[in-house]
């Protein structure tokens, strides 16, 4: 994961992320301000006094906080469109991820979110081998082709050409299996299936938040599991990472203990629990 572009380009501390957004907003604000001044000076002659006054009163750039709200609203809309197009969960996830990353490099003042939503979904489909030709995509979304294609390069560049996204969905499948091994005989399969489905939904919602920049995909998965069933998840993590499993009493326990003892884990249980608990709180 540390070699991935997701870790190298798109992982931040909360402070770094805020700094980045302030910088993007400041840059856009100053360029908007400058183009406004140019507009007024170039059109001095045929602009009435009150026009200039209303421009100065109303054409006020949005703040960084307002940007975050606007991007979140459109990310939700994007999720709705992608789900309406019946795209697979991972493609929806990648669309959301691309869209939110775009607005870490661009301000809504430069590119209104509604202009980039479909391009983001279109590129995500291509990138995830779920190719939809532009003709049928433009037909399904009732938007002209070139309005979708014209921003593709800019989107790709803003993504810093990093298209491979690791989502918390595959780790969910992995933990679904490993929980069965570590808690062998102690978990009801049907119940696990319900947990699995609920976690998938929680994870898709989590992709709309900043946890994707602060935590790794498996940590987000464990936070989603913690949200769905705190007792089960804590039990699993204790057995897996705390090494305080009971003495082997019956055969199944013996097997599961083998599973645990063989995996020479170097993860500190307390650090991990604190980390996924804070991730859970942020998702909530």
């Amino acid at each position, binding site marked *: 994961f540390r070699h991935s572009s997701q870790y190298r380009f798109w992982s931040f501390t909360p402070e770094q992320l805020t700094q980045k957004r302030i910088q993007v907003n400041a840059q856009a604000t100053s360029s908007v301000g400058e183009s406004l001044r140019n507009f007024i000076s170039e059109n001095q002659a045929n602009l009435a006094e009150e026009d200039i006054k209303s421009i100065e009163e109303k054409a006020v750039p949005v703040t960084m906080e307002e940007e975050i709200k606007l991007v979140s609203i459109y990310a939700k809309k994007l999720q709705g469109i992608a789900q309406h197009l019946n795209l697979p969960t991972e493609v929806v996830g990648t669309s959301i991820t691309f869209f939110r990353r775009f607005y870490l490099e661009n301000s809504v003042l430069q590119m209104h979110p509604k202009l980039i939503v479909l391009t983001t979904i279109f*590129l995500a489909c291509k*990138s995830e*081998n779920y190719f939809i030709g532009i003709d049928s995509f433009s037909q399904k979304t009732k938007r002209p082709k070139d309005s979708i294609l014209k921003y*593709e390069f800019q989107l*790709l560049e803003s993504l810093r050409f990093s*298209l*491979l996204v690791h989502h918390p969905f595959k780790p969910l499948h992995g933990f679904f299996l490993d929980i069965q091994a570590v808690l062998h005989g102690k978990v009801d399969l049907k119940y696990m299936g319900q947990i699995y489905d609920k976690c998938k939904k929680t994870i898709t919602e989590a992709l709309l938040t900043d946890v994707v920049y602060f935590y790794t995909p498996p940590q987000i998965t464990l936070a989603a599991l913690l949200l769905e069933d705190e007792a089960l998840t804590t039990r699993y993590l204790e057995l897996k990472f705390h090494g305080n499993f009971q003495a082997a009493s019956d055969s199944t326990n013996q097997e599961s203990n083998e599973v645990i003892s063989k995996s020479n884990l170097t993860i500190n249980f307390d650090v991990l629990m604190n980390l996924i608990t804070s991730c859970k709180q942020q998702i909530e």
Partner: protein
Amino acid sequence: EYTKEKKVGEGTYAVVYLGTKQSTGRSIAVKEIKSSAFKDGLDMSAIREVKYLQEIQHENVIELVDIFLASENLNLVLEFLPSDLEVIIKDKSILFTPADIKSWMLMTLRGVHHCHRNFILHRDLKPNNLLIAPDGQIKVADFGLARTVPSPHEILTSNVVTRWYRAPELLFGAKHYTSAIDVWSVGVIFAELMLRIPYLPGKSDIDQVEVTFRALGTPTDRDWPDVSSFPAYNKLQMYTPPSREELRRRFIAASENALDYLCGMLTMNPQKRWNTVQCLESEYFKEAPSPTEPSKIK
């Protein structure tokens, strides 16, 4: 920062130039993606190259030095690699030894193994996609057909891999194949390095089936469970697999371990075919001659 000094190639979706990275004087290759070539916007091959080369940093995989947009064209800056294995195989004036072949195989497998452990299928391994760096290192290149290992239910196209290097499951139209298809390609390349002529040169997709099974035997449900369930299986000519003796005669220079290694990679049943770890850990790489030091390969 980058110059484009000489045009060295042109494909359907890209033009390749030789150039220099100004700040370091390093020779580079610039792959300029034609933006107009693909009516659906950015070309899928370009997206794949960008997507996978961004994630892979390995001595035996071509390095993506940089990417930039210029006048509406996407430019991939790649490390400059002056030659490839196809040139070596074809140029009969170049003599090489079993130790050289072993070295090329080792480097190729390391590169392919690194892709597979990152769950990336290359899907177009062939001699001219195995480029050779000035220091002799082999570099796996051209990720225009690559993709991540699919989710279990996903359906994949079988129309991948250049015909002569295409695994039998692809010839049968398989939709749920695995990284085993890349290992088959490496096996055919190994055979070609030993023979110095193409090993399974089918003249068409149909002929490729014929050529493959005539050389290696037609698979049956016994050695490849459910192979007969492929729709294309019915009209097949039945050939018996070559005996060990026939293989020895075909690959005179090959040791017993080399033959085991070849047969491991060219195992018909993809479930049983060796994976890259089994290849790398095979006796072939442990026995003499040891692989030539890459920089010493003439």
